[in-house]
């Protein structure tokens, strides 16, 4: 168990509202990631972090921002949610002494933007 939790597990929101998803890890993994999963598109990387306050864009970063102020927390923010951002969002972690480069996923957040 790599000790990763996502919150909330489900969220319904309206177009134009801000949304923040949280990822929390307990085993001091260096790297943290946000992916989205959509039918027909598989898993696509939104943003990732390689350390506190060190983040970079993935392949589908438009409309999303991230922050990592502590090793254990990685936040994904949709500044103004759109219907195209309805998806399942997964946080993932890697880069620890115990597990090396193995990637571990959280349980996911089902986000619906109406």
């Amino acid at each position: 168990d790599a000790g990763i939790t996502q919150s909330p597990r489900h969220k319904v929101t309206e177009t134009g509202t801000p949304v923040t998803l949280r990822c929390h890890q307990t085993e001091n993994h260096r790297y943290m990631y946000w992916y989205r999963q959509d039918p027909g598109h598989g898993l696509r990387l939104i943003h990732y972090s390689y350390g506190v306050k060190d983040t970079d864009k993935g392949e589908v970063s438009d409309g999303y921002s991230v922050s990592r102020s502590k090793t254990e927390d990685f936040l994904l923010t949709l500044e103004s949610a759109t219907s195209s951002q309805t998806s399942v969002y997964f946080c993932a972690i890697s880069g620890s002494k115990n597990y090396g480069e193995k990637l571990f996923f959280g349980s996911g957040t089902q986000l619906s933007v109406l």
Partner: protein
Amino acid sequence: GIQVEQSPPDLILQEGANSTLRCNFSDSVNNLQWFHQNPWGQLINLFYIPSGTKQNGRLSATTVATERYSLLYISSSQTTDSGVYFCAVEREDYKLSFGAGTTVTVRA
């Protein structure tokens, strides 16, 4: 970016059967991992295998990095093996790219 192709896209098995899933990638990689997504959506890491062969119970995986492919073997399949199997590769910068997956259905 690096291309990851998985085959077959769908696989239906009778319980007890063996199967092989394939992952081809378009460039040299530093990192290759296999994942299983169960019917409830949970993603489980099966193998970290940038090269060589590993076994974990009824599952085994082989990566031939020089020929740019990896194989996942499922032996004596069980209904609990159903789900989607993903291959993911990393070329640089710790960013894994995922294939589209193979959907496996094991029938009792």
